[in-house]
């Protein structure tokens, strides 16, 4: 918070339209120093440094350990919306105490930042700068299309390390692969230093075409890339909707409900079509129907082949093409009757299905922290039931964290264990667990046997609290 003057200067610097990079075209091939300098002048002010505390979960106890860390942020709107790479927030790591440092060296300015709900279809995070009312920030605007080509040179601007005073730097890279499916993906030809993850990517025509990212999310078929560790260009159309319409700060609130059908599926390969005597036109083969799902209610059966969903033909022949179906389902409206065409044992069949809102997933499940025994538990959600292959009649709460040195820790309890009974009380919900803990706190028993499921087996843990 050294000076306010810079913000004013930026405002004057043509920022009403955003930093659309200096209008200097460059021949394909190496970028000239003049080109790089002009781009840096235009883009660097929108690059900021995010300092935050990452709360990382311990595998053993589920407890969080804090460490200070940083990331590159890119201001994408004049009111202080910052985009950064998705690693800032994950199932195992939550950011807090976010500080946004805008500007460089002696002229930087520090703000509080608030993390917004992470999009689940692109691996980026958004942070809202808590500036003064009406305060304006330098920002970048992205090109609406990218069409990069193999071998094309790109220019990146990032932040160097602490010992270099977080100075802004430039790197040049090339496009090493253009992958068209499951969606257009551009790979970068060389490793990316940490301070350039999330950096703006500029092409030879001075267009800011995207940012540097790693790994697609599972929702967009990311499984294919998860272990690649290969740097990619996240092209602007992937995240434009979030800049246009930023997520809210409330992690539990979704801007629009995500629809759920409740099936697991696989593509109708030509071989499978041949085997079943079906036309080799592709389709979505239903391999599992989740109990209690809209699909089950609509009468969809295992082995059905969906050929059309809400009027859109389904032509998946490869695993990567199933993504189209899952994406379509997610974006379909909840509560509307949707026509589905399918083949059942070779015969065409028309059904209609009403999708429901996706059930709460483990990461959004209700959580309860009790201090007496040191247990943090969550409600059992559909995704956990499927992941752990729990018996259908399993009702309980799942241990999320065990406080180090607590009675629960001493008894050998660990995250992932499902509590079915606490003392003499059956536990099927968070409320019942809370109630059972409260009763134990009042009765102060010398020992509390806790009946749990751990993996395929059940058994007892004995808590021995000392009440004095």
């Amino acid at each position, binding site marked *: 918070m050294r000076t306010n003057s810079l913000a004013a200067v930026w405002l004057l610097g043509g920022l009403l339209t955003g930093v659309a990079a200096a209008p200097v075209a460059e021949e394909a091939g190496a970028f000239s120093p003049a080109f790089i300098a002009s781009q840096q002048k235009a883009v660097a002010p929108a690059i900021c440094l995010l300092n935050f505390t990452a709360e990382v979960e311990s595998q053993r106890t589920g407890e969080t350990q804090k460490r200070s860390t940083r990331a590159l942020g890119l201001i994408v709107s004049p009111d202080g919306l910052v985009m950064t790479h998705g690693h800032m927030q994950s199932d195992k790591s939550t950011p807090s105490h976010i500080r946004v440092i805008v500007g460089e060296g002696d002229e930087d300015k520090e703000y509080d930042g608030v993390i917004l709900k992470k999009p689940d279809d692109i691996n980026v995070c958004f942070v809202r700068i808590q500036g003064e009312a009406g305060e304006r920030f330098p920002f970048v605007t992205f090109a609406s299309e990218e069409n990069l080509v193999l071998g094309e040179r790109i220019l990146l601007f990032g932040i160097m390390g602490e010992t270099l005073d977080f100075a802004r730097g430039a790197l040049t890279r090339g496009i090493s692969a253009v992958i068209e499916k499951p969606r257009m993906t551009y790979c970068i030809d060389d490793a990316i230093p940490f301070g350039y993850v999330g950096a703006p990517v500029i092409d030879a025509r001075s267009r800011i075409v995207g940012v540097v990212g790693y790994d697609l999310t599972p929702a967009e078929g990311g499984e294919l890339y998860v272990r690649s560790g290969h740097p990619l260009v996240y092209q602007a159309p992937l995240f434009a909707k979030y800049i246009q319409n930023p997520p809210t700060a409330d992690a539990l609130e979704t801007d629009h409900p995500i629809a759920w059908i409740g099936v*697991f599926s696989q593509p109708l390969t030509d071989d499978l079509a041949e*085997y079943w005597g079906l036309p080799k036109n592709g389709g979505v083969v239903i391999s*599992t129907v989740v109990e209690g799902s809209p699909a089950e209610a609509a009468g969809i059966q295992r082995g059905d082949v969906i050929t059309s969903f809400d009027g859109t033909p389904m032509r998946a022949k490869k695993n990567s093409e199933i993504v189209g179906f899952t994406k379509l389902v997610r974006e379909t409206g909840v509560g509307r009757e949707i026509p589905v065409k399918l083949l059942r044992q070779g015969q065409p069949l028309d059904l209609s299905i009403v999708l429901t809102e996706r059930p709460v997933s483990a990461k959004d499940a209700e959580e309860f922290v009790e201090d007496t025994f040191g247990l943090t538990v969550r409600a059992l959600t559909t995704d956990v039931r499927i992941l752990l292959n*729990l018996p259908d009649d399993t009702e309980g709460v799942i241990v999320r964290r065990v406080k180090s040195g607590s009675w629960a820790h001493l008894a050998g309890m660990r995250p992932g264990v499902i509590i079915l009974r606490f003392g003499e009380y059956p536990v099927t919900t968070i409320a019942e667990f809370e109630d059972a803990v409260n009763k134990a706190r009042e009765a102060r028993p010398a020992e509390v046997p806790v009946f749990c499921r751990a993996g395929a*087996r*059940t*058994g007892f843990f*004995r808590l021995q609290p000392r009440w004095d």
Partner: protein
Amino acid sequence: MKWLSLLALAAAGCATMGSPGEHAVIRAKNKVIPSLVHIRPVKETFASGQKQEYVVEGSGFIISPDGYVVTNEHVAGDSSLVRCVLYNKDEIDAEVVGTDRYTDIAVLKLKSSETNLPAAELGNSAHIEPGQTVLALGSPHGLSRSISKGIVSVTDRYLGEEGPRPAPYNTWIQTDAAINPGNSGGPLVNLKGEVIGINTRKLSGADNVGFAIPVNTAREVIEAIIDHGYVPRSWIGIRLQEMTSKTDDPTQRGVVVADIDPLGPAAAAGFVPGDVITAVNNVPIHARFEEDLPPVLKRIADLPIGTPASFSVRRGEETQAITVVTMEESDYKGNEVEFSEWGFAAAGLTPAIVQAARLPSSQGIVIAGIEVGTAAAESGLRQGDIVLSVDGKEIAGLTEFQALYDEINAAAKRLVLLDVKRGALTRFELLKLEPGADNDDATPEELITNEENGEHPDEDE
């Protein structure tokens, strides 16, 4: 006589004569070492989807003049040939009389007409105590005729039922005598030269923490294997926990029912988790600590197979008798068979797999391994998948699967559909068979001819 005692002192300090302790060690070693056997089995594995053989090094000891040899199941089990090198360096092959995975014991019989082989004397492991000197004999890292010395660290270590090698029926002698890979199956002996244990495990990452099966456990298992070829045991489908898992109150006697196999006899008889079993056929049972569990588990295993047994059960304040008809316990690992034309190896289902996979019945087979570059590998099939049906026909077990496999191969089908369960999900996996693709006899000439004729094996008919 002062000179005599001076002489004794001098002798004690003399390295060649040895201390009284050394005498005892050497005497014990001399007594048992002629029985020591270096064992080199050729084992079979199906983890890669096809049968592969490899040689391991282990230890064992002769227990009868006519050539019965004891070693570990993990040494001699699943082997096609067992080569034994005796202490006099004679090499003799042995047949596997039988194995028991639950106690990790195998009994071999040397293929020799000799009737005067040096048999080791089995001691009494009930009479050992921590601190007593023991010797471990065997072939650490294949170095035969090795001896290490230590003490008994603990007489009754419980290593439990969890993990890849459950050991429900015995506690272990823990020793600090050096035990290394290759020591497995060798004798742990006292200073009388009697075998008190079979060296079997070590704690990796730790120093001097080895474990031996007590000889009293082994003796019964060896007798059963010699009589039946295996150890018949009763099973009712429950998992037990010690009393202290629920209460530290020493007046509460019995053993806690922790888990019930939904398809087992105990579930059918109405047991529920949390029940406390206080007696079996009116004989009280009690396991306060986990070390007390093996005798209780063995009591149930020793019940006659297929007959009703009465369990006294305390549920809350009430005590009741529950009658359960016992079943025979199955091996915890099914036999593995290779199905090379399709590119995988599979095993029959065991109650443990059925319970873990939440199967509605014990019908099906489990994929033990996938061979690279085969139809199975090309499909989405994975190790651990459970195959429930083939071309719409449900499979009861490995035998039925083998019959279907032979039938389908004889019909030279190109596509075979497997119904597969993987965790909570089911999937369709299509095997695209290429008749002749697995034909190892094809000569290069034949392949060239095929190509010249334009007959590509991939081509559709």
